[in-house]
Structure formats: C-alpha cells, structure tokens
C-alpha cells in the first residue's frame, strides 16, 4: 500500500472518523481505523459495532492495499504535522508516514481481523431533503430515554407512511414528534427505531453541503449515504409504544404565551426549585400565568407573573422545569401554544408558526403535593 495526499485533507477526514471510534473497548481492534487504498481513492472506516462510518477521499494511490492503525495515535500525528503532502507506505507489518523532513512508523494490525462493515445496497435507497432530515433529528432526539431498562425508548422512531414521514422520541415523561412531507417515498411503509447517537452525527456531515441525502432502511440497520461519507447503525428492536393513543386531541384549555418570556421566567424560577423534582407550578388565571416554586432545603421561594392569552377554566399544574425549558428551545417561533386538560394529564405544546400536525411536544405534569 502506498498513497499520498495533503495533510489537511487527511486530518479532517480522520477527525470525523474519530467520532465513531470508541476511546476504550473490550475489543481492542475497535480503537483502530481501517485504511484501504483503492483506485485513486482512499477508504477509511471505523466502527464500534453499533455504528460504522466510512469516508471516501480522492487521492493519488501508487500501490493498492490496506492497513489497520490505532485511530487516536494516527490522528494526533497527522494533526500536528505542518501542512504538506504526506506519503503513507506499508512495509511488512508496519506503516510509514513520510514527510519532507522525517518519518513516523506505526505497526499495523492485520486487516483480516477488522470487523466487516455492512454492505451498502443502493437499490433500496430513498432520497430525503437534507434540511428536512436535520430538522427532524434536531427536534426529536433530545426526548429519548437514557434508561436502559426500556430499550425501545432509547431510540427515535422513524415512520414512513404514504407521502409523509415522521420521527418520534419519548422517555415516558415527555414526547417530541416531527413530521414532514416526502413525495419520493413511493408508498413505502416502515417503522424503525434508531439509536440517537447516529442521528446526532448526521447533521455534522450534511451541514451546508448536500441538498439531499440517501437513506437505506435495512432489515437490521439503517444506512445514511452522505456523499463521501457512509454512516451505518444497527437498529433497536421494537415494539415502540403506541404513542398515537397518548396524544390528547380534546384538551379544552389553550394557553398562548411568548416563548422567550416563558422560557426566561421558568429558568429563573427553577433555580429555587427542589433539586430533585425541579418542580415549577403554573397557575393560570385569566390573562395571567404565575410561575412559582419553593424549596424547603434552602428556605427559598420564587415567583414571576407573565401575561398570556388563555381560554378555559383556571388551572394549576406542576411541571419539571427542565422538560419545559428544553421543549421551548425546540420551538421556532416566539409564540407557543399549550393545550391543557387536567393537572394530571398530558399537555400539548407547539408553536404558532408550525401546525401541531408537523411538530408537537407532549409533557406530563408533576402531580402537585397537597
């Protein structure tokens, strides 16, 4: 194997790969990257067995071949090199990195030992607008559960049906659902559950670049074809809970309030909330929303009143301030709408600029102590 390319190109490529390489693993080979020199291109791959990444870059290849090198060490060497053309050559079981005034040698692990990455069958690929995909990801993954006892909730449900698709995430306390139109689905109907880690990587590879990305819904995995980069992730096994039946449709109380004002007030008031429950009380009466909290541990109390537009009977309802603040940060417009019913039932939150059919969040209240 022998190839050469510019330092910056090599370094950038390794940097993106490194996001997938586990820093420590019970399988030591996973801390390596696989480098394959093909016709005029270099293919660099890494995997943690859940997520795999392959980056293709064009470069001059003098001699085809492959090597498996420790990812972190390789990256650190390349990053520190001055900008220049770098030549990499494999001799016996070592790889030599040649620069104009010196060289570095690293032992290569046998490429046969590196795990095989899933094959990409582009026939089943569908095209998705990059903006839509990124938006769906950024508005839902935050609500995933991190508790490992209910694996399905640790992922994002991606549903395609007719010419719409949507992502849903929930941890059982709150839920986020974002839906977009896609006319290229050709009647595809799939429900898959994706680990949020791979979804959170996707935006980094499409930022400002491609208009469309290719996605392949596999049997056990999902593949994102992002021009030069291919991201693969195993799927989480379902079933996903029936979220549709918990989205209330007949909440009779409607609160319209400024997102900025509410978010700021909740954040401030919650400083004095109980550190365990983060409970903030919402008391809505006519055109006034009173946020209050108290904390016996520090003997503190906080209260703010903001004006709002409210239809329905007065209500007092408790929320975990963190949940509310996080949901508010996902709303696009300054005007947000809460549809409420009972102090113990789910509230629906959406922004006035986007119909709730497109993007909505649910939050379950905290039952207020007597």
């Amino acid at each position, binding site marked *: 194997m022998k190839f050469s390319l510019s330092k910056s190109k090599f370094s950038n490529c390794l940097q993106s790969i490194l996001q997938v390489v586990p820093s420590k693993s019970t399988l030591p080979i996973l801390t390596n990257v696989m480098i394959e020199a093909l016709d005029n291109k270099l293919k660099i791959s890494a995997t943690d067995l859940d997520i795999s990444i392959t980056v293709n870059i064009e470069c001059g290849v003098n001699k085809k071949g492959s090597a498996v090198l420790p990812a972190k060490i390789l990256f650190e060497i390349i990053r520190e090199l001055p900008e220049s053309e770098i030549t990499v050559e494999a001799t016996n079981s070592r790889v030599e990195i040649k620069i104009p005034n010196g060289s570095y040698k690293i032992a290569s692990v046998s490429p046969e030992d590196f795990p095989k990455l899933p094959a990409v069958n582009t026939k089943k690929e569908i095209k998705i607008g990059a903006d839509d995909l990124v938006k769906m990801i950024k508005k839902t993954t935050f609500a995933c559960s991190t508790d490992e*006892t209910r694996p399905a909730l640790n992922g994002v449900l991606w549903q395609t049906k007719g010419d719409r698709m949507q992502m849903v995430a929930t941890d059982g306390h709150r839920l986020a659902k974002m839906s977009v139109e896609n006319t290229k689905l050709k009647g595809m109907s799939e429900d898959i559950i994706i680990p949020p880690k791979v979804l959170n990587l996707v935006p980094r590879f499409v930022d400002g670049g491609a208009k469309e990305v290719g996605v392949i819904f596999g049997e056990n995995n999902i593949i994102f074809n992002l021009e030069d980069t291919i991201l693969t992730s195993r799927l989480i096994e379902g079933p996903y809970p029936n979220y549709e039946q*918990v989205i209330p449709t007949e909440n009779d109380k409607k609160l319209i309030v400024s997102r900025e004002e509410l978010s700021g007030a909740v954040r401030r008031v919650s400083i004095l909330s109980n550190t365990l429950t983060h*409970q903030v009380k919402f008391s809505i009466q006519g055109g006034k929303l009173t946020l209050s909290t108290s904390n016996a541990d520090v003997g503190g109390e906080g209260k703010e009143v903001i004006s709002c537009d409210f239809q329905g009977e007065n209500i007092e309802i408790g929320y975990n301030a963190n949940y509310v603040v996080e949901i508010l940060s996902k709303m696009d417009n300054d005007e947000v709408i809460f549809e409420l019913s009972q102090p113990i039932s789910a509230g629906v939150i959406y922004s006035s600029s986007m119909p709730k059919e497109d993007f909505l969040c649910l939050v379950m209240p905290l*039952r207020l*102590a007597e």
Partner: protein
Amino acid sequence: MISPALKPWIRPLPERLVNKIAAGEVIERPAAVVKELVENSLDAGADRIEIHIEKSGSKIIKIIDNGCGISKEQIEIAFSRHATSKIYNFNDLEKLVSYGFRGEALPSIASVARVRMISRPNDAELATEIIYEGGVLQSKQPVAAPPGTTVEVENLFYNTPARRKFLKAEITESRHISRLVTALAIGRYDIAFTFIVNNKNIFSLPSKEKLKDRVTALLSPGREFIALSGETDEVKVEAVIGSPDMAQSTRLGQYIFINGRFIYSPSLSHAFMSGYGELLPRGTYPVGALLLRVRPDEIDVNVHPSKTEIKLAREKEIYNAVHRLIKEALRQESVVPVFLPRGIGPEQTEKKNNSHQERFPGYGKGKIIPGPMSRFKVNKDFLRELYHPSGVEDTSLDSNIVRVDKTTGEIVENQATVSFPGKPGASLDRLPELPRVIQKMPAAEPEEISLTGKFADLYLLCKTGDKLYIIDQHAAHERILYEDMLRRLDNHAVVAQQLLFPVPVELSPEQLACFEEFMDLINRSGFTVSAFGGRMVNIEAVPTILGRKDPEIIIRQILDDLAALKKAGQDIKKAMAQSLACRAAVMAGDRLSDEEALGLVRQLMHCENPYSCPHGRPTFIKVSREDLDRQFGRC
C-alpha cells in the same frame, strides 16, 4: 387443702377437647387448613385441584379434587383422631412417601369449624355428604356428585374466639394462603391448580406443565428463568432459578421442597444463595424453586405437626450438592463473570481458618465465609455466624461510641467522639476489622469538610482537620433520601411524575396481596397504581425521586420490600421510605462529579442521623492521623 369433693380427678380428656387442643397445634391459621386439605387431595391421587377462599379463609375454604374419594363406610373414620390410610406401623414412618400421616388434620379442622365433605370413590354410584360442626357429626346422607372429594370449611375458629382474635389482618392471612398455594402449585407442577379468591380467579394452571413454565407463570411472568437438574448419591435436584438481577430483599421468592413437601430450611436456603456467590448484591436473595428428592428414610418430617421443618440425615452432602449445582448452572449461563474472593474456595482448609482465628481472636470471623465444601459442622451456629457475623459489637472497645441498631439504623446510644478503635498489638499486615460502631462526627461546620478523593466509584474520601472520613456514597444518599421521604410522607408532599405510557404489571399472587394491603400507602407515596383486574395493576405515576427507573421493576421491588419489612415488624411508613430511598439512591459504581460528591457529604451532615443508612449499615468510617501513625508503627 382442697376438699375431697373438689379434688381434681386425673382422667383422659374427652376426644372433642383433644381435637380442639390438637387444632391449636396443627391449625395455626387458615393457610394451615388449606395446606392440610390440599395435601389430602394430593395423597388421594388427584390431578386437578380447585381452591376457593373467601374472606382470607375465615369465611370459606373449599377444596375440590378429583382424587380417589372416600367410601361411605370409611368417611366417618376419617374424622376420628389419628385415623389415616397413609401409614400402618412405625416402620412405615421411616419411608414415608405421602404428605400426611398423623391423622390429625381432619378431626382438628372439624373441631374448630363447620366442615362439609362430599366424597365419591370412582366405583361408587353415589357420593356421601357428611357435615361436622365443632367436632360433632351433624348429618350424613347420600348425594349425587362427581367422583372425587369436596371439602368445605366454613367459619373457621368460630368456637375458639381466642384463636380468631389472634389472626392477623385479613390481608396478612390471605398473603400466607397465597404463598402457600403458590408453593403447592410449584411443588406439584404436574397437577392442574385453580386458585380463586373472593370469586376472583388468581390463577388456573394446566396439568402436566413443565416446572420452568410453572415457576415463571407464578413468580415472575415474562422473565427468563434458568432450569437445572442433577443427581448425587444423596439427592436428586430439579430446580428453576431466577437470574441474579431478579434477586429480592427477602427469601419470600424461594420455594424449597423435599420429596414434594414445601419446607422451611435455613440451611438449604443458604445453599441456594451461596451458589450465586458474588453474583448477588448484598442483602438480596435469589428467587426460584428447588425440588429435592432424597430417600424417604433419610428425612424426618415428624419434627413439628405442620411439617414445614424437617431433619435431614445428610444435610451437609445435600447442602454441597445444591450449592455446586447452582454455581455450575450459573457459570454455564455465564450471567456475569464469576469472581471468587480469597477464602471462599474449597481449598481453604478448616485448619487454616481456625489458626487464623486463634491469631486474631475476635477479628475477621465474619469476613471469611466458610468454604461450603470444607466446613459444615454445626449448621445452626454456622448460619447464625453468617447472618450475624460476630465481632461487630466488640465491647472491649472504648465506651465513647455511638451505637446503631442494626435493623433500624437508629442511634441507640449517643456519646462523644473517640479515637479509632484500633487494638494495641494488632497485626501490621492486616487492618483490624472495623466494628459496627461509629464515631460521631465532630460538630464541625459542614463547610469545613473537603473532598480529597473518590475510590472505586463508591467511597468518598473527605477530611476535616486531621480526620479522614471514608463515606459510602450509596449508604449516604440512602440516608438523605430516607429522611427527606419520611418528612414528605408526613406532610403529604411527595411529588409524582405522571407517566405518558401507563405501565401494566402482572403481579405474583403474593405481590398482589401485598399491594391490596398497602394500596393507600403506595398511592400516598407518589405512585398512582390501580388494580386492573386479575393480577394486573396499572402504574400511572411514580415518585419523582425515582427518575426514569423502570416503574415495573420498582413496584415489584417495593412490594417485596414492604412484605419483608412488615414481617420484620418495621413501621410500615418507615418501610416505604426505606424502600424508596434504597431504590432512588446512587448506586455503588455510579460515578459522581466532585460537586455532586461534596453536595452529598454536606447533605449527609445535615441529617438527623448521619451515621447509618436506613438498613443500619454505617454511612462512613473515620480514620485519624493517630490511627494511621499507629498502623505504620510511628508511635
């Protein structure tokens, strides 16, 4: 001097009185009636048994079987004392294969209740109905009925008001019955059991089931159990055991049988647990069923009329066999890598242990768990030793100490601070075992305490002045949450998180009985749990302190905890706070940031009793400069 006219005559008691007295021994509580009657059905060769209970057995206990029945000539004899079809002479007792043999049950029950028996042998055309009330025959007549025997016990203890008064709350009695019926159904998994309480079907199990299926259905539906079997010269073992993560804080999830008889045996229960070794978290007990078969002449069941305690001729061998088999099975299942600390393996000889104890009298006894292969001499002492390691309350130490009650964690005596209880002359190669006495922390301002490090993601090292404190993060957090929870329970201020997806849970019969008993308390503690029909309950809200932990697992653990702590006589509200605190606290292995760790220590210092966790384990130990100096031989 008593006048001759009043002089008491020595004479045999009338039979009715004898039966009533015997009833006191055999028929302790409604569950005992169920046990005796179902065992009669089993001895009669029934393969289908239906058990009806109303008002936890005090109103009606009805057992319907399809066994061999009793002919009309014999039926009256069945109600006379020491009449039995099961043994004829004392030699038979040596090789007992049936459940009953004393011939006490029926007359005893009949003497303290109204009993109606309808029985028809297969070859008879008509059944005989016989009714006894308070031990007196009321009627006997032929009736039409299917083959088999139905026994209906009504108004149990109606004529022994004292006994009736001593019965526990209805729900406690029904929990005893649930556990017993569960045991019977496991012990005879080949037989179809139907269990109906207050007209509600608790379970219906088919005949000829596999042991694994039956245990799963009864103990933890939906969980994966491990089936194992094996045989030695002494014992044949068939078992279905739960994985270590299903372990409970009580032994109530264990069902142990010898020759089909459900028994209570601390030694076998210990063998069961010790087979798990390090796989089990401390203070938890594995769940599952052990069915042992030994030669009938090697077992003595005639120790107590209720036959739950037995004597085994070769207890040591059986202990070893059970221990080894479970250990092997778990290793094959490779649940978690097995770790054997030094001193547990069979190669550790008795001599070594003894000599060790001679050198360090009072130390380390509790620490070295005797190798089950090598030592099993006086099993009672051995077990006591295991459960209550000696040396933990060594009174030869300084008297200025705080004593902590091991079961409640409350301070018993409260005295001033003292130095580290190191013994003069203690060996240098081994730190003396830290006794279960804790120094009171100086009345230092909490702000003076600083964190110097963390060890093993469990111990926080802190210092004030020249004292070093080693704090157990789990125990400390448990203490903080426990006191907070108690306050909140008192003030009705437990905050609950409503769940988006209510969680349906199928409880075991015992858990259901416990749930029904403590439903109010559970729902005041931040849960919203409602009965859903059958053994199902629905969880709609959980206390916020539990975060995002799986509500199903939590509710099961809490029900088990409550049952156990209630049994141990613990105040039930404290039991609830204790259970919640334990479930919500950071665990050993949870990595805390420095800020979190320091926050935890400060909160601990504000607790009413910072010295021990609610279970009575210490939250911290103190090491002074002098102690270390002494250990290093500097003074």
